[in-house]
């Protein structure tokens, strides 16, 4: 059993609290990303899991065992660092063998394990090289190899792809996912790159200012963000967040903002008439016909689609994603139709909680 459970985990640095009463239950074999902006506490959380940092309060369990006071080497975890932290004076083979050596594995047993790991990561021809003779991607694989070789219960990865160029990053992303599927081990992955988190994870824990904002599968995080922060953080281009007023007219809820009036459904019991924020994904507004009128200010063509910025009611700007076949010109007046069924309603303010239940999206087709 290698589930990872954090119960009310807290970490203070003097007067600053980096992590506030964090609760997370990561199932065995799950790939979980800790996602958030810089300084949100995600790396601190990972370091607490690794035992490099000690929680000020709360409890961390790995495989059912409380590990708060257990040193890193005895937690049965392996970590891949952002800088890879390869031992510069050791060869690739010795780097991979190091954790085995320190655990007293005899030389004769170390060799086949190192060879097997090298083969898995396509490092066999590089075993005699020193880290400085390797490219970024190769160094990254050696760091993975050093983590893999002793078959730990949990893998901790601290932004392992952030030092690679864009092309290699996409390649390594796929390799990591494949590796996870093959090993079936619990992996905790820290990143500030939402695309990495979205594409690789079983579930994403979104953290902001040391507090957990949402812990859900990528699709849920995207289609049903728990609050305004998650709504604004996930998605490129970001969700359009419009300040306005929520009102109830004859039993039906309606959201009103300058130049925009939209009926919203499925509101929760927390919903109250008054100021609120409406969230519209760029793809949830149809351009061409509709009740809202706007002026096109910016047009960006990316080949397979166009991104346009439309100004409504003189000040509110909406970013919209439209098919490449529609190409308005800057200055054109266009009619817009927001998709009310996929609109998100949040309480007013920066930390506004979600006030409506998300409409279920059609399940992706399996082949």
């Amino acid at each position: 059993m290698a589930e990872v459970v954090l119960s009310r985990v807290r970490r203070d640095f003097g007067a600053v609290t980096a992590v506030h009463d964090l609760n997370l239950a990561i199932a065995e074999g799950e790939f979980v990303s800790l996602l958030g902006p810089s300084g949100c506490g995600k790396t601190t959380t990972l370091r607490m899991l690794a035992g490099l940092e000690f929680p000020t309060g709360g409890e961390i369990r790995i495989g059912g065992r409380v590990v708060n006071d257990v040193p890193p080497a005895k937690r049965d975890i392996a970590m891949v660092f952002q800088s890879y932290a390869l031992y510069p004076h050791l060869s690739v083979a010795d780097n991979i063998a190091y954790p085995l050596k320190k655990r007293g594995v005899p030389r004769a047993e170390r060799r086949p394990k190192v060879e097997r790991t090298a083969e898995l990561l396509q490092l066999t021809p590089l075993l005699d090289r020193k880290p400085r003779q390797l490219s970024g991607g190769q160094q990254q694989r050696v760091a993975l190899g050093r983590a893999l070789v002793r078959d730990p219960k949990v893998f901790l990865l601290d932004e392992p792809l952030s030092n690679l160029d864009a092309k290699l990053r996409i390649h390594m992303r796929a390799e990591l996912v494949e590796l996870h599927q093959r090993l079936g081990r619990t992996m905790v992955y820290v990143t500030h790159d939402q695309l990495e988190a979205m594409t690789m994870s079983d579930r994403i824990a979104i953290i902001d200012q040391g507090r957990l904002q949402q812990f859900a599968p990528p699709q849920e995080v995207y289609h049903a963000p728990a609050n305004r922060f998650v709504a604004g953080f996930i998605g490129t281009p970001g969700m359009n967040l419009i300040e306005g007023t929520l009102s109830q007219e004859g039993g039906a809820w309606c959201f009103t903002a300058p130049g925009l009036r939209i009926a919203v459904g499925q509101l929760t019991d927390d919903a109250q008439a008054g100021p609120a924020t409406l969230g519209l994904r760029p793809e949830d507004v149809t351009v061409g016909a509709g009740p809202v009128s706007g002026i096109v200010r910016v047009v960006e063509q990316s080949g397979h689609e166009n991104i346009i910025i439309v100004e409504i009611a003189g000040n509110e700007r909406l970013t919209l994603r439209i098919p490449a076949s529609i190409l308005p010109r800057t200055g054109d007046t266009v009619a817009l139709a927001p998709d009310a069924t996929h609109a998100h309603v949040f309480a007013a303010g920066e930390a506004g909680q979600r006030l409506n239940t998300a409409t279920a999206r059609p399940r992706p087709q399996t082949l």
Partner: protein
Amino acid sequence: MTTVPQTHLERRYAALGLLLIAPTVLVFCVVIVYPLISAVYLSLFSIFTPTLQGEWVGLSNYQALLSTGEFWTSLGNNVIWTVGTLVLQIVFGVAMALVLHENLWFRALARSLILFPYFVSTVVAVLVWKWLFNDLYGILNHLMIVAGLIEFPLDHLGSMPNAMISVIIVGAWKYFPFVVIAVLARLQTIPEQLYEAARIDGAGPFARFWDITLPQLREVLVVIVLLRAIWDFKEFDLIFLLTGGGPIIGTQTLPLLVYKEAFALNRMGMAAAYAVVMMALMLAFMLIYIRQTRRRES
């Protein structure tokens, strides 16, 4: 090899370059090349120092030198002094650098204080140590007697091997801050994540020192050892002031022998021969040092 024709501008730049390095080359020739050639030249003469008059003797100074016991004793002393003081400097220097690298509250103050022996004038340092070592009123004997280590006062500077041990200790005290500074500077550049990775990989404090710190310090230690070996090998003032080479020639190293030959025995030619032999020995260290720096640069 094909020669690339130079443009007018390139020739002017080259001329400017020559002009700019000319003063340095000139000073180098006056203060290094001339004395060097002069020393080799002098070593081929038998010269009376006060008059600087003498006659050509060819290589007989060298013949005489290699057959005297004093040369070999001094060379032996030189090696003992250099190795002894260097080992102590490295051990204490590295240890102190490791302590000062830790997050101690008095770190800033300690880092400044540690440089004190290196900055204090050798004459002053030797006076203080001579007072500490004094067999009649020195505090060292007093403390050793109080601690029950000895029954009667020891003659720290007037008997062997005490004198050599004392000189080695004072040398180590005087020069270990150099090692501290160089090692500390290197320690601060070792990425913390290497230690964290090693902790996760199961390395204890000793293994972390052995597997990470030491290999990372290797290059800087090689340079320190070579530089300090050269400097210690030719050390004169500290030994001369502390023991004058005594008792008899118990702590006499080659630089002291050169001085004795030149100014006490008035044999300038012989002194020059000793100096040339010393230079040849140090050249070996120099060549290793140059090779090491070249390898690092490449």
